[in-house]
């Protein structure tokens, strides 16, 4: 390499980032072989040589941060989080899956089961049924607690397939009946010498749950239509299921979401115009119809990027040799398309605000410990 005097070196741009660095900072490039620039540059002094401050300024964050709701129903929602770092978006996702409480069946008391499904398998299946109740109305049950009306929900399942019918019958989740007054099964008494003492059941409810204002005209139900098991002629199931409050990190049955995920916004760029036959070829290549053809007049047809959001980054459009230079696939690093599918216990928008609240509480706890 020839020696270049220091004075002849190109001057570093001051107080702004050159375009190629800006592209590295804000976009993930998806090339034919592998994605590049995947690492987020978060260090505050990363661009100090160019006089650019990369530190966190809250007022700037507040100005740039945007939320756009795309779809919202009782069970699922899709929204865009724009202007936030992946670490924080991921924290929300992780909290949604594993740190938000719900109620789920934890104990199953089987009185009779002649079904071919083993008791432990049956209990596992019952555990996974989502219970449509707001967990914030209940308390956690610790090891020494007795089951009471504040920490336990009891369901009864009694199902018989008559021998006469000669047909198999299906047991569904909606065959579970809520018992607002707690368990109906008696604890085996140790001393029968004291007949005056009231016989005890497996739960000690002091009052019936349906007398509480929250459940007065709003009985607790489970998601209907889920097959629990099938019974042959003459088979019978009689059991009681006790649901308690728990977290998804203990067992997935306590997760309030079926799934919660995000993806970065795809960005498809055509650096040069693609016209004529090549345009039609490009439109045909894409399995999710990202591209459209635009008539430029004089019979000239040009390819346009019509639906970049639909892009799944399958990279089919750049697979053939030569195409990598014609189409650029990127992802916007700070734009997250977030999807939450609730199991039904709480609406998805409530789940997200609760998740953010939990991250806040975590920070507060660290501050208290360090002070």
């Amino acid at each position, binding site marked *: 390499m020839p020696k270049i005097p220091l004075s002849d070196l190109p001057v570093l741009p001051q107080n702004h980032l050159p375009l190629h660095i800006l592209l590295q900072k804000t976009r993930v490039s998806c090339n034919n072989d592998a994605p590049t620039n995947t690492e987020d540059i*978060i*260090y*505050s*002094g990363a661009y100090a040589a160019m006089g650019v*401050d*990369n*530190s*966190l300024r*809250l007022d700037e*964050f*507040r100005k740039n*941060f*945007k*939320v*756009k*709701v795309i779809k*919202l129903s009782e069970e699922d929602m899709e*929204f865009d*989080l724009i202007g*936030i*770092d992946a*670490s*924080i978006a*991921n*924290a929300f996702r*992780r*909290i949604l899956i594993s*740190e938000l409480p719900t109620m789920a069946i934890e104990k199953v008391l089987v009185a009779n089961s002649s079904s071919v499904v083993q008791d432990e398998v049956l209990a596992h299946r019952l555990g996974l049924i989502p219970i449509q109740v707001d967990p914030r109305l209940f308390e956690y049950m610790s090891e020494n607690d007795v089951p009471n009306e504040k920490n336990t929900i009891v369901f009864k399942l009694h199902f018989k397939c008559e021998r006469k019918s000669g047909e198999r019958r299906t047991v569904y989740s909606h065959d579970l009946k809520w018992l607002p007054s707690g368990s109906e099964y008696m604890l085996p008494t140790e001393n029968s010498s004291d007949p005056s003492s009231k016989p005890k059941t497996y739960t000690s409810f002091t009052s019936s749950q349906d007398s509480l204002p929250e459940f007065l005209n709003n009985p607790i139900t489970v998601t209907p239509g889920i097959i629990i098991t099938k019974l042959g002629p003459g088979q019978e199931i009689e059991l009681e299921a006790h649901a308690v409050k728990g977290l998804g990190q203990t067992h997935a049955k306590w997760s309030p979401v079926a799934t919660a995920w995000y993806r970065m916004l795809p960005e498809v760029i055509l650096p040069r115009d693609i016209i004529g036959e090549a345009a039609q070829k490009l439109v045909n290549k894409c399995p999710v119809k990202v591209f459209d053809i635009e008539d430029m007049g004089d019979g000239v047809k040009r390819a346009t990027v019509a639906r970049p959001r639909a892009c799944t980054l399958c990279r089919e459009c750049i697979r053939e040799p030569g195409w990598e230079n014609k189409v650029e696939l990127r992802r916007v690093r700070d734009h997250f398309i977030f999807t939450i599918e609730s199991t039904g216990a709480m609406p998805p*928008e409530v789940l*997200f*605000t609760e998740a*953010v*609240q939990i*991250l*806040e509480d*975590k*920070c*507060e706890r*660290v*501050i208290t*410990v*360090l*002070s």
Partner: protein
Amino acid sequence: MEHGSYQDLSASTFTLPDEDHTLANSLRFTLNQDPRVTVCGYSIPHPSEARVNIRVQTTGDPANEVMKDSCQDLMMICQHVRSAFDQAVADFKNNKASESE
């Protein structure tokens, strides 16, 4: 819990029990964005132990203070996200209601 030295307060390792990537990675982000921090990273020493170590080295300020400020920053971010989200959901519901009328 903080592991550091009384002579040099500018470098410390913080052990957070019952925490994982959720908090540690978010804190690593806010810490790295603080101009007073020279080096910051975190590790989970063993996967079956629920605890995470966060290392913070600063240009001179007490690491403890910087850590607290970063937690504060993360809280402010969360508060803003929450209010912006609630606003967006309310707007969406209003729009839908006015459309169906």
